[in-house]
């Protein structure tokens, strides 16, 4: 499962999507928006067709490099509030070492190559950008 979506991530569905009878180990990573006095939410912008493509390539490389059995990556975009999951990666492998290694590697790669950008939104954010982000959210 590779998905870029504005709606909240269904973590159980992401995990279930990598379950395979031959896999004994599933490693999962969730990135969540941390509380900060200056941050109410993060606004994620994406170049979606390229992001989907780089995520698919990344899963292919993980399978070749770590021998993982299945990998799913879901990235949320738009406005994600504090406490919300912005990214979920699930990785199934025969043994746990590969599952952990592939999951950590995939998260590094997501931050390195997937065309997604974030901006903080909070009480000190210029009003113009808050208004624009709000409008984007309302029309979603």
């Amino acid at each position, binding site marked *: 499962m590779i998905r870029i979506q504005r709606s909240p991530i269904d973590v159980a569905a992401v995990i279930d999507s990598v379950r395979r009878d031959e896999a004994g180990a599933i490693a999962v990573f969730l990135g969540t928006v941390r509380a900060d006095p200056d941050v109410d939410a993060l606004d994620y912008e994406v*170049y979606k067709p*390229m992001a989907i*493509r780089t995520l698919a390539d990344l899963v292919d490389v993980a399978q070749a490099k770590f021998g993982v059995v299945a990998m799913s990556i879901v990235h949320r975009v738009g406005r994600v509030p504090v406490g919300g999951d912005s*990214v979920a990666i699930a990785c199934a492998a025969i043994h746990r070492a590969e599952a952990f290694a592939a999951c950590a590697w995939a998260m590094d790669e*997501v*931050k*390195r*190559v*997937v065309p997604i*950008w974030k901006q903080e939104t909070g009480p000190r954010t210029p009003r113009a950008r808050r208004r624009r982000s709000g409008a984007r959210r309302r029309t979603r």
Partner: protein
Amino acid sequence: MRVQVKLFASYREVVGVRQLAWTLRDGETLGALVDAVVDAYPRLRGHRDTMFLAVNRAYAQPDVVLRDGDEVALLPPVSGGFE
């Protein structure tokens, strides 16, 4: 020939639009296109060294020769994830 130039995040804010239609000579490279766009929008100049480039939704190097109808993207350093 004509290509579309997509702009994201800080570049979009600097230029003020999400996309530019750009006309260039046949055989021109991606690097030459970027030079022309930066000349037209000098506020992009400070970003030139950290800019990533894509053609048709894949990362590309400046020496790639463009073709009519290509979708070019100027990408600020990515910052997906959460921290």
